[in-house]
């Protein structure tokens, strides 16, 4: 997994060197079919699609990972604290989570993003906003189980503070679970980034997979001319492959998070 992470990081760093053209420069005819000069053809403005895909990977992956990190961090902190601290803090936190979970996520995200105005920061913020409540709920229920364990009681008896408990015991014990939640949320965040961009709420100043899709699907010509095959299909496959990979990673990490599932 570490090797894969290094590979991805290296790929992201090298992308500007690998991309054959400037993704925003007009370098060919409009909607040119794939050729040796443009392996994935060009878009309606005559920009090189392959370069856009390579450069767009960076914005998409960074957005997805940052949003998932934020969601997981907030979700973990709220969930773990809520699980350890009984009383009104727990009640208030879980009521907030319940209410947020009851509202449909996407319309809320769209409303907030449209009101604030599209930017990379807005997108990251709204995805994280939608992500932390379910994570907090799962982490809380696992923390409650942990809190009943002998060693946590012992640590508490020895005078350990709550922050220390969260950091040294809960975080360590729940690392596999948090990793699994992070992986599956990174998948969701990646798809959401593209989705929000598709709905016209993406960052217009930078190239991302979402912005490529949005531009392509905005016009009917993409279907009729066959540009769909070299313009929409590759972006869609990239998003799908990356998201599915992350989702499978999450599923694969689940048994480690919950040893009960390993039996049978």
């Amino acid at each position: 997994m570490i090797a894969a992470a290094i590979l991805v990081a290296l790929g992201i760093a090298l992308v500007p060197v690998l991309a054959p053209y400037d993704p925003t420069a007009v370098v060919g005819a409009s909607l040119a079919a794939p050729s040796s000069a443009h392996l994935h053809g060009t878009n309606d403005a005559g920009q090189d699609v392959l370069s856009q895909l390579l450069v767009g990977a960076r914005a998409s992956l960074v957005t997805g990972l940052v949003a998932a990190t934020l969601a997981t961090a907030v979700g973990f902190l709220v969930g773990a604290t809520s699980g350890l601290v009984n009383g009104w803090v727990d009640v208030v936190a879980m009521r907030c989570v319940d209410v947020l979970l009851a509202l449909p996520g996407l319309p809320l995200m769209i409303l907030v993003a449209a009101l604030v105005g599209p930017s990379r920061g807005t997108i990251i913020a709204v995805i994280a906003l939608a992500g932390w409540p379910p994570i907090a709920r799962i982490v809380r229920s696992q923390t409650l189980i942990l809190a009943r364990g002998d060693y946590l009681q012992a640590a508490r008896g020895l005078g350990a503070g709550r922050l220390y408990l969260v950091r040294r015991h809960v975080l360590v014990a729940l690392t596999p679970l948090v990793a699994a939640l992070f992986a599956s949320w990174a998948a969701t965040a990646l798809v959401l980034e593209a989705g929000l961009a598709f709905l016209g709420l993406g960052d217009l100043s930078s190239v991302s997979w979402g912005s490529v899709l949005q531009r392509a699907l905005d016009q009917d010509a993409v279907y009729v001319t066959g540009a769909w095959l070299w313009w929409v299909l590759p972006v869609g496959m990239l998003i799908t492959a990356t998201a599915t990979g992350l989702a499978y990673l999450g599923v694969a990490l689940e048994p480690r998070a919950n040893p009960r599932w390993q039996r049978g």
Partner: protein
Amino acid sequence: MSYSAAVVLLVTLNFFLPRVLPGQPLAALSDPRSSTYVGDAERRAAVEEYYGLDRPLGEQFGGYLIGLARGDLGTSIRLNVPVQALLTERLPWTLLLVGSSLSVATLLGMFVGIQSGWRRGRSSDRGLLGLFVALDTVPLFFVASAAAYVFAVRLGWFPLSGGRTPFSDSWGLLRQAVDVAHHLVLPATIMALQFAALQFRVMRAGMVSELGSDHLALGRLKGLPEGRLKYRYAARNALLPAVSVLAVHLGFAVTAAVFVESVFAYPGLGRLLFESVASRDYPTMQGVFLLLSAIVLAANLAAELVYRRLDPRAAR
């Protein structure tokens, strides 16, 4: 209790979001220098009147609540018609799309989930699990666009967009119904695939947890036929969690409807939201948000009540 809190939060959120979010989105509507300035004087006046920004906040909130009680959601900036009229016009289409796809998906997902869970660990189960995890993650707007390209453009089996053929009002009733169904097939199928994936996973997990149960072992010892064990013994209990997630699916359905309707230009609430985002039509966006959230909350409440009847243990 939780639902009344959610409704209060929803109504309050809908009022405060446009007023407290950074960038002063509402003030920008009447600022000639901003990109969202409403050029048309009559429409600008309508928006300013609806939001009432020159009045004190308490008075604004009171006016908003009274308007809400009367069903007044303001006037669409883009179309210059009452938001309420737009919502009533679009709602039936979304109900048709979500209703048809959810019912097909529930049956399909449950049936396949029963089969897969019953054969846990065998290659057919692992194949189905992998397939449905993938279906669950594939971006909907991409699948929808792929289906549009293959089945509408290349094969020409279905119309590319819309909910009905334009100017088909004069057609006979049967012909109109067939036309609407014809437009429904592609978007509904795409949505159904994703719901089926969710339903499949819950149903399968329920079946798997039933596999080692005592009453199943007893039934087997009695020599009951396989089919009876599968459906009457295991699936019956596994059905409970599957029913309780149905309402959760409605939350996903709203998300799915926004994407699928946008791709197919299907005339429902999701498409309305998409169109109003493009023109920064805040009153319409807020109206759609409010209506969709209210529907999801109501469905959640209904599901909880049904669940209590199905499982007496939950009532306690």
